[in-house]
């Protein structure tokens, strides 16, 4: 079961936030193919998100081939997002540690680093938006 | 499924809503009016015994007692009629009441039907009680009473019902127009008393063509108008009995000289008087009641139209 959260201050549309949370759950292995997603009504009742928004997120994920709606029984996970190879993960992490060290040496504080990462990420997100 | 569906919000529903919102006020007022009626009946009984032992013409006091009906009508106008719509606007509850599946005008019809019916019943009770009280007056040694006088004329159920419904309708209409309770109450009170005064002073005597009596000049004056009748007009008339209008011939009884000769010289053959005889009082009461009811209907129509306009909320 996934618990959805909407970051209301984020500029990212709510349905994309939901879609991203499903992707995240797939990537982390919380959701596996064949798993049933909560019904739209359940998501509305638990997280206070508009039904149309949930529906839009599910449709977006169906289009991406990650979910499928089965008539009358709900929405199910169809495919998984390959978890990242642990080796690749380690390599990325090592790179990030180096990068953070470099940033600290340049005088950046945690907040600055957050802001920088955030700005790079939001730029990336912007391109995700159809 | 717990959903209940109906095809129409019926009159019964509207009456129930009116009853449930005004229940306390209806019960308290009815109780008070009933109590006052019983109390007055009891008091008047002893009062009559006491007054007749004093041989004192106390009917005037009793008349005042009988004005309870008018007081009730005034209260119905100010405390039921005026706030009926005005308070809804003031407390914004009209947005609740009229926002359901019932139009404002149908809602109003339900409220008016219930409170109007209660008003009419209580007014009729007040009218009966005050009528009964006045009937005791002759037993007190006064042969007759002037039935057209204020508080005597009104001491009858039909007049009480008419004027109470008029007061109520006036309150409803003024409340719908002003949308403010206190001003509506004030205007209703003043308006009701004003209309009552106008009818009593200038209207009542014209409900039917008056009876005319004529007396040629004679050494002895006889009363032209019976004691219990309502005098309308009087003056000099010519030989054909036709009134000669208000003319000043300068015949005023100066220097102790009878002006009759002077008047006769100007063509006046005698005196005449127009009046409404006491026998007509019941008919007049019905007429007055009818006038009040027509006015009330007009005012309710105005309120109904005003609510339907929905130009402002």
């Amino acid at each position, binding site marked *: 079961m996934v618990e959805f959260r909407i970051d209301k201050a984020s500029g990212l549309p*709510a349905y994309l936030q939901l879609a991203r949370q499903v992707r995240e759950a797939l990537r982390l292995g919380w959701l596996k193919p064949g798993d049933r997603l909560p019904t739209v009504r359940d998501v509305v009742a638990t997280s206070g998100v508009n*039904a149309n928004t949930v529906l839009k997120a599910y449709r977006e994920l169906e289009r991406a081939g990650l979910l499928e709606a089965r008539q009358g029984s709900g929405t199910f996970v169809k495919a998984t997002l390959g978890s990242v190879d642990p080796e690749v993960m380690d390599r990325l992490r090592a790179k990030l540690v180096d990068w953070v060290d470099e940033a600290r040496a340049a005088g950046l504080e945690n907040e600055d680093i957050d802001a920088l990462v955030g*700005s790079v990420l939001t*730029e990336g997100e*912007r391109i995700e938006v159809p | 499924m717990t959903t209940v569906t109906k095809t129409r919000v019926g009159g019964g529903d509207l009456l129930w809503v009116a009853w449930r919102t005004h229940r306390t006020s209806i019960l308290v007022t009815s109780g008070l009016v009933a109590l006052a009626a019983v109390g007055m009946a009891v008091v008047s009984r002893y009062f009559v015994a006491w007054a007749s032992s004093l041989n004192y013409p106390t009917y005037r006091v009793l008349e005042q007692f009988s004005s309870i009906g008018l007081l009730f009508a005034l209260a119905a106008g100010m405390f039921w009629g005026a706030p009926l719509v005005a308070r809804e606007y003031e407390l914004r509850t009209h*947005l609740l009441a009229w926002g359901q599946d019932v139009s404002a005008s149908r809602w109003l019809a339900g409220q008016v039907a219930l409170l109007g019916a209660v008003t009419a019943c209580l007014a009729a009770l007040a009218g009966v009680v005050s009528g009964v009280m006045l009937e005791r007056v002759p037993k007190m040694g006064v042969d007759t009473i002037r039935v057209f006088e204020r508080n005597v004329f009104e001491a009858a159920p039909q007049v009480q019902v008419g004027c109470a419904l008029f007061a109520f309708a006036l309150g409803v209409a003024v409340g719908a127009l002003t949308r403010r309770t206190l001003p509506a109450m004030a205007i209703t009170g003043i308006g009701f008393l004003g209309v009552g005064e106008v009818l009593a002073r200038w209207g009542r005597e014209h409900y039917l063509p008056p009876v005319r009596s004529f007396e040629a000049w004679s050494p002895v004056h006889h009363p032209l108008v019976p004691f219990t009748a309502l005098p309308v007009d009087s003056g000099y008339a010519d030989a054909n009995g036709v009134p000669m209008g208000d003319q000043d011939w300068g015949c005023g009884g100066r220097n102790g000289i009878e002006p009759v000769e002077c008047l006769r010289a100007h063509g006046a053959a005698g005196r005449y008087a127009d009046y409404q005889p006491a026998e007509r009082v019941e008919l007049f009461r019905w007429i007055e009641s009818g006038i009040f009811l027509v006015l009330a209907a007009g005012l309710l129509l105005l309120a109904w139209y005003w609510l339907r306009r929905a130009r402002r909320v």
Partner: protein
Amino acid sequence: MTAVVETAGIAVRGLGKGYRSSVALRDCTFDLPAGRVAALVGANGAGKTTLLTVLSGLLRPDAGEFTLRPGERVAFVAQEKPVYKHLTPRVVLQLAARLNLVWDQARAQAWLERFDIPLDRRCGQLSGGQRTQVALAVAIGSRPTLLLLDEPLADLDPLARTEVMRDLLSEVADSGATVVMSTHIVTELSGVVDHLLLLAHGTLLADGDLDELLAAHVMVVGPRAQESPVRGEVLWDKHLDGQSLFLVRTPTTPVVSAPWVVRPVSLEDYVLALLSATRKGDVA
């Protein structure tokens, strides 16, 4: 709930309403598809209440017209959340049951019980927030297909706001009702509403699907500059000592080079930008 074909819910054409001394609504035209949850946003006196009251049928417009779905059942919760103060919530529900063609007592009562509203205390002794719940319970009990809410959250504390919104959304998800909700609290709307109606001085500034509206705009941020590096209509700009911000309407995501960045526009950015632009326009 499978693929939903959107049908027209409310069609508003040239709606206008004036009062003796002011114009409350001017030539308002928009369509709201059925089943949408729309936020009606604008400054005080923008005409939000007038629009809702006209749609509720309680107020006659001076100009224009609107059409609802055939058989639409409208419930309106007015800004004042009016309830009869001398009656208890239980009796208020009884009144509503009598005055409505459709009534679901269990739903209405469950709403009050869920929020711990005493059913037998007179409404005059309830708090503003509790009275709001009574007014909402009346609306929900009447099973509307169009729910008009005027500042429904204003008297509620933050926790209650979240819960009420969540439960309202559940109710409308069940019934498929269309919702129009006026509010000041723009920051809490993301994910809650999917449609926007933005009013200023009685005029409709923007309306449409929320995601589409926001996706059609970007916030361009960079060093202080006279002009936006992105082509498109600049709806709003702001210039600080070392920084300039432009809200630009653009059909595609523009690519800019450093030091400029392009940020997605949040609902709050969008609303505040459009509203402050009209304020400037008024002064000029």
